[in-house]
């Protein structure tokens, strides 16, 4: 079947299998930032934004995004012009292996859209579905708080 959706601001009209996961579709379309850590909805590594809300692309069927907006990490910033959240993750030391990073940053992005001034415990609560085995999470929470501070200072919206 063919579906239509918006991927990182660009229209897509693509053929999908009814049972194909969104994760598989996005990687097929070249969005390699979308990673698979478990494939069963338990680690959050594959998180992308669907109409701005974090979802697990591994347990979302591709046809479900028909007519919707999908954002992957590629849509947030680029190597030449990274998003402040991406910069904050690097500055705070929140990136070790970087495998959980795409899902973390997208989830954090959604949080800061909802709540530009989260308390540390609110950051923790929001990120609870995203596992990281490298960092111990401390610097990830630091990074989100740093990006939130930059947002409040008007460095990004």
């Amino acid at each position: 079947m063919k579906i239509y959706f918006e991927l990182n601001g660009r229209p897509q009209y693509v053929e999908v299998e009814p049972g194909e996961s969104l994760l598989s579709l996005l990687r097929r379309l070249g969005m390699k930032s979308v990673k698979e850590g478990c494939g069963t909805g338990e680690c959050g590594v594959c998180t992308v934004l669907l109409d701005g809300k974090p979802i697990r692309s591994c347990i979302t069927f591709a046809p479900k995004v028909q007519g919707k907006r999908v954002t992957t990490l590629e849509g947030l910033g680029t190597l030449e012009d990274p998003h402040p959240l991406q910069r904050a993750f690097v500055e705070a030391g929140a990136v070790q292996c970087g495998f959980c990073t795409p899902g973390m940053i997208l989830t954090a992005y959604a949080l800061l859209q909802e709540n530009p001034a989260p308390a540390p415990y609110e950051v923790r609560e929001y990120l609870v579905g995203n596992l990281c085995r490298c960092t111990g999470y401390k610097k990830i929470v630091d990074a989100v708080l740093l990006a939130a501070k930059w947002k409040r200072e008007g460095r990004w919206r």
Partner: protein
Amino acid sequence: MAVILKAKREVVGQNVLKVDGLPLATGQPKFTLDMDLPGALVGKILYSPYAHAEIVSIDTSEAEKVPGVACILHYGNVPRVPYTTAGQGWPEPSPYDTVLFDKKVRYVGDRVAAVAAETEEAALEALRKIKVEYKVLPAVFTVEEALAPGAPIIHDEEDAEGIYDAKRNIAAAVDVPIGNIEKGFAESDVVVEATCELPYSQHAAMEPHCVIAYFDEDGRLVIRSSTQVPFHIRRVVSRVLGIPIHRIRVVKPRIGGGFGSKQEIILEPVAAALALRTGRPVKMALSREEVFVSTRTIHPAKVRVKLGAKKDGTLHAIELEAILNTGAYGAHGGTTLYNVGSKALPLYNKARNLRFHGKAVYTNLPVAGAYRGYGANQGFFGLEIAMDMLAEKLGMDPIELRLRNHIRTGETSPIFEKLGEGREGKPQVIRSCALEECLRIGAERIGWYEKRRNPRRKGPWAYGVGLACAMQGSGITGVDMAAATLIMNEDGSFRLLVGATDLGTGSDTVLAQIAAEVLGVPVEKISVYSSDTDFTPFDKGAYASSTTYVSGNAVLKAAEEVKRQILEVASEILEEPAEGLILAGGKVVSERTGREVSLSEVGHRAFYVANQRQIAATASFACPESPPPFAAFFAEVAVDTETGIVRVEKFVVVADCGQPIHPKLAEGQLEGAVVQGIGHALYEEMLFSERGSTVNSTFFDYRIPTVLDVPEIEAILVPSDEPTGPFGAKSIAEVGIDGPVPAISNAIYHAVGVRLTRAPFTPERILAALRTKDKERKG
């Protein structure tokens, strides 16, 4: 937190941006599976459903008929070459007890066959259609069963090499006496004994094991793998498949965590064999369940520690016995076993009478392998709980007891000489140790003395504080070697080529900092290219906390030689001797005249103008000793006496890793390791059915700490200065996992008076212990 550095340096000791940070944070396609290879086949593995069985026959005729199936491999159609999956230096101390596919399976999850097909669906369908007839054999699931007389022999194959006693299922054994242990205990005023048990747990790196194997346009085999040991893969694949080393290239791109699980050569020979047989690229990616069931685990261990001390707290005798379960194959079994003693025992070097003995035992359970800590965490679990018991019995503060006994700068331990990498070691003197300072700072940050005296209580919640100490090493003495190549470009920038394997730790950044410091340039001027056996010089790989120290020293040597060459060219330009020239800030300056020449001028002259040559150097560093990092761990816990729930309220870890090259990365290593340790203390345990199959093989059932499980963690670095380390540095990657389990157990004891010696400390175990204590009190 602040780090006081010994000398003001430009790059070393600074929190520069991680060199691969932005590429990773912007999602660049840097991981193994991010490369699309047109026409790649999908490789899948058929696993044994039995814990111990002989394969009577295997029939692939139906499977071969599945459209899209290109190749099926099993014991009947591949050469039989014994090897070890342990990615260690040659000759590996681990037994050669594995073959690509065997006629016998030894655990649920053992490899039976592999399929390559056009699609994953076709591969999976083919797996289902392979008909295997098994003759099920009796299996053993505990070391006691495996050691019992008449137990089934797990490795009865004739061609295995290096097994200590295959008939008794003993993969490796050790018994090292020093002094006279019996006399030592007899002469002691106080004796205590603890037996601690660490169960099966898993690394759970977020990226599952994966590999792509293909033949390049010159017909050479390329293996792109998520690995910690590219050079060992090249050697082992060459041996197993009979392809000459020069026809193989192994590339490690970014990898999504390893923690030891990828120091193991699991998928690479299979993918390479499938590619070889089909002439097509083959991609293999394990599912999370497959990672749990079929890859590697920690070495479950029973560790018994007996301590004898004089009244003043001076240790007089230590006996340490470790029984490790190495699972169905012996990869890393002997070396992890040795490490239990060689890492734990030297910490308290005041004891004259020692005995370390133990075994690594085969069972029909998943294969234990390398896991961060590598025996040290098993050893310190027992030792540090016994130390807590001893302090109590002596009526002495636990900090005081450590201070009285721990090793100091300038001292040694006979253990260094007696215990090495699965064999004898080398004598070693400690040249840097700031453990005393670590203990002092940690005690202050947790509020030790106040909280020890007045333990809090709030409703059902009882609070307590506990501590543990640990040390590790920096590389493997007399075994590890790393090399680095540094090449100058004409614009005054450099290429740093290292075999070292950054597995997310940030070692590419640390190595670039070392080079940049010597060359007087910012890190941005150094392009790091790592872990490609075609383009980078040899490095043993990322394990044994070796990269900063061993690879770092190689980079330091290469950079110093390149600096010498730069000064030589500059001296030609400036027409004055190199001795009076200084390299700093991207240029060479004459001390005498103040004249200067930029690195770009130096580079252009060397390439194009006069006396032409490539400014470059390759240097090697072979690990002559292994300076230990030290750490003190302090846990504050709250125990709900009604439900048995334990909450870690605060965790302080204070470590001496010498001079930290990149303090923030070093802290990150500590924080990550501590949280893994908290996982081992409170949540993580692989469970098995009666038939030996892994029951909890998802993140839903096997819980690793989430962000909400993590307490306030304070990671503090107390720099010492290691004279043999690059810019005074030692390692940091592993030591942080050694302390949380005993520190939390000791804190629970302080809170509620029960000793938890079987991890994880689940509510059920706490409640059971509380009930037993209650009964004992009531008599």
